[in-house]
């Protein structure tokens, strides 16, 4: 209890434990959860050609069009990687084409990234804009009078059938289409933050030791196991509360789907035990809470990244996927993936929960051994 009260009294904890996780879920959802189609910038005057090109691009399902006022702005956006490529339709394009000349459309892309490939998409839009003019020009070129050529072209367009390009998709999606914008971010961040909060709790363990509270308790008929158990229980409750809070908050704010509620709760409990074990171990490894804090942040963020809390495990390479299995995060993330993406039940996540509990037990055993050493060997 003393541990809990000490935790609540520090107001900055409120930010790190309750505000920050929601902020990050929001940020990740906004960055990756939404439409990730490549953005193509467009600079165009009021003319017909520019309009046609812009509309043709906007009609493409996997391209997002962004308008820019000037070519300079568009070029720096491409250079800085804000957008993938750009098109510049000169203001006099319509006049040039009407006067029988060639209208020069500029495609702007970097040599790296997707830019060069996106030229095909822009070329298609330009071909749409040029179709009618090209037909009229060709027929006029055969010596036909302009007005007659235009009429013939209009009629020919109705007679010549279109050649359809039909697009179908195949394969099983890595992430189901029903997956909400915030679903991946929410479950991976709950894992990251619960562990981080656990490690931050190691500072409290160090304080308990430094202030001599633990040594004094040892003087009473209290075993090392009881001290470790008490400290661990305090951390466990805090970490679990944070986990439950994030789950409820993301359901309320972002309508995140967590799957089977009982199974999700079981995973949270198992992972909270891991967080508590890690807090205890850290608390016995360091004597200076600033050092523990620094190493804790690195370990917390680093292990989370390795365990698939920053990039979904499905997108890992083989080697990194194997390494990931050495982190408790990977097992928790995998359990949530079962629940959220594969509609799993309690039975499906039992293996992962088992591994997590084994992690927790291992950490606590080592922590108890370390605690006995640091408290008795002086």
């Amino acid at each position: 209890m003393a541990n809990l009260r000490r935790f609540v009294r520090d107001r900055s904890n409120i930010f790190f434990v309750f505000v920050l996780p929601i902020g990050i879920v929001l940020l990740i959802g906004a960055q990756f959860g939404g439409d990730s189609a490549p953005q193509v910038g467009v600079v165009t005057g009021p003319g017909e050609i520019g309009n046609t090109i812009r509309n043709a691009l906007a009609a493409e399902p996997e391209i997002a069009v962004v308008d820019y006022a000037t070519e300079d702005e568009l070029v720096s956006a491409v250079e800085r990687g804000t957008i993938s490529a750009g098109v510049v339709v000169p203001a006099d394009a319509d006049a040039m084409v009407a006067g029988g000349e060639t209208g020069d459309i500029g495609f702007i892309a970097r040599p790296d990234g997707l830019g060069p490939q996106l030229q095909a998409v822009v070329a298609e839009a330009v071909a749409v804009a040029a179709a009618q003019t090209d037909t009229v020009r060709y027929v006029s070129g055969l010596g036909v009078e302009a007005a007659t050529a235009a009429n013939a072209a209009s009629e020919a367009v109705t007679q010549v059938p279109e050649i359809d390009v039909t697009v179908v998709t195949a394969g099983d999606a890595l992430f189901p289409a029903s997956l909400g914008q915030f679903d991946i971010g929410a479950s991976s961040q709950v894992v990251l933050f619960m562990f981080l909060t656990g490690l931050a709790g190691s500072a409290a363990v160090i304080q308990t030791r430094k202030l001599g509270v633990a040594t004094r308790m040892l003087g009473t008929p209290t075993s090392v196991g009881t001290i470790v158990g008490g400290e661990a229980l305090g951390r466990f409750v805090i970490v679990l509360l944070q986990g439950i809070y994030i789950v409820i908050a993301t359901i309320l704010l972002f309508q995140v789907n967590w799957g089977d509620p009982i199974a999700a709760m079981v995973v949270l409990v198992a992972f909270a035990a891991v967080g508590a074990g890690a807090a205890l171990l850290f608390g016995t490894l360091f004597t200076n809470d600033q050092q523990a804090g620094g190493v804790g942040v690195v370990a917390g963020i680093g292990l989370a990244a390795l365990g698939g809390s920053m990039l979904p495990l499905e997108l890992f390479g083989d080697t990194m996927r194997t390494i990931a299995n050495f982190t408790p995060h990977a097992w928790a993330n995998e359990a949530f993936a079962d629940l959220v993406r594969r509609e799993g039940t309690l039975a499906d996540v039992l293996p992962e929960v088992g591994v997590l509990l084994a992690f927790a037990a291992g950490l606590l055993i080592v922590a108890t051994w370390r605690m006995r050493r640091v408290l008795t060997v002086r």
Partner: protein
Amino acid sequence: MTAAFTIAIKDLAQRIRDRSVFIIGIIAPLALAFIFNAIFGGGISDVGENITLDIGVVDEDRGPIATAFTEVLADIESGGFIELTTYPDEAAGRVGAENGEVGAVYVLGPSLSSDIISGSGAALTVIGNVDAPTTTQIASSIAEEFTLAVRRGNTAAVAALIAGSIGPDELEAVARDAGQTPSALALGTVEAATRQLDPTTYFVAGLSVFFLFFIAGMSVTSMLDERREGTLGRLLAAPISPGSIVAGKSITSVIIALVAMLILVIASTFLMGADWGSPLGVAVLAFAAVLAIVAIMTLVGGFAHTAEQAGNLQSIVAVTLAMLGGTFVPISGEGFLSTLSLITPNAWFLRGLGDMAGGSIADGLPAFVVLMVIAAVAGTTGLLLVRRSVRV
């Protein structure tokens, strides 16, 4: 001023003896950047990488149109933009798209050429892998552009026939000729420079700045510590002005932050292959960033009454700015978030490095100016606030 330096030298010695500064300032950013790079390397960012899209083709037609199309594809392949895989039949092609061997497969059906030439409707199919929407989009656009050209030829030939300038027997030849005539709209490519950091450098630079905040914050916390321990009172009893004490503390933070940055730049260049760009430009920009960060942390610390409070407030500000500035989650795309990120020194530092990477040192000037303005504004306000705390 001598007093300020004496205090700075004492503080430096104290901080070096406490190993946390090395952990937070050097080991932490390097270790995290290493992990981020191992996971994200190439996965999340394609800066500096030339991409080749895997596209398959099934030619069951083997007629003139299908041949012309595969020639177009071969041409694009020779440019290095796509890599073609030929499948014997539609079933094999579908399997290739399904299991992600290729991002998309063209199926040129058995009657494609004859249907188009005879003037009946025809269709060309693109089977796209569900997780490769961009490759599928590009594959479909390549096909659309090709079929538009074919149809343009056919339309021109039919129009010429309607206008009476050619006979029905000339249709096919004229269609081919018209399809190859240059269009009234020419698409020219302007190659843009890459003003963006490669993923390794991006992560190292972003994380370095993030951890610099914590080093910078120590100037205020160490003063509040001195107050708690009573040593501040003793300093004030000596003939030292409060300004000198604040200056001494700030100088310490600036020096430690600059040294940490120098070590990080050198270490990441040799250990991880980071490419920071011109040393002079990096030095100037890093100097401005350090001043801005120390200023912001002084300002934030100025609101606090105890060292714990200051440390907590500073952590909150550091984490928030890093988040918005794209340190943990790179922010790309045009939108509210990328505009919002420009309130952070983190984003300006990264942008300045990127601009210099794609141009010259002069291109880093806007970022330098913004950082210096942040430093001046936050620094002046911060010092005024902190002076209040210089009391017993």
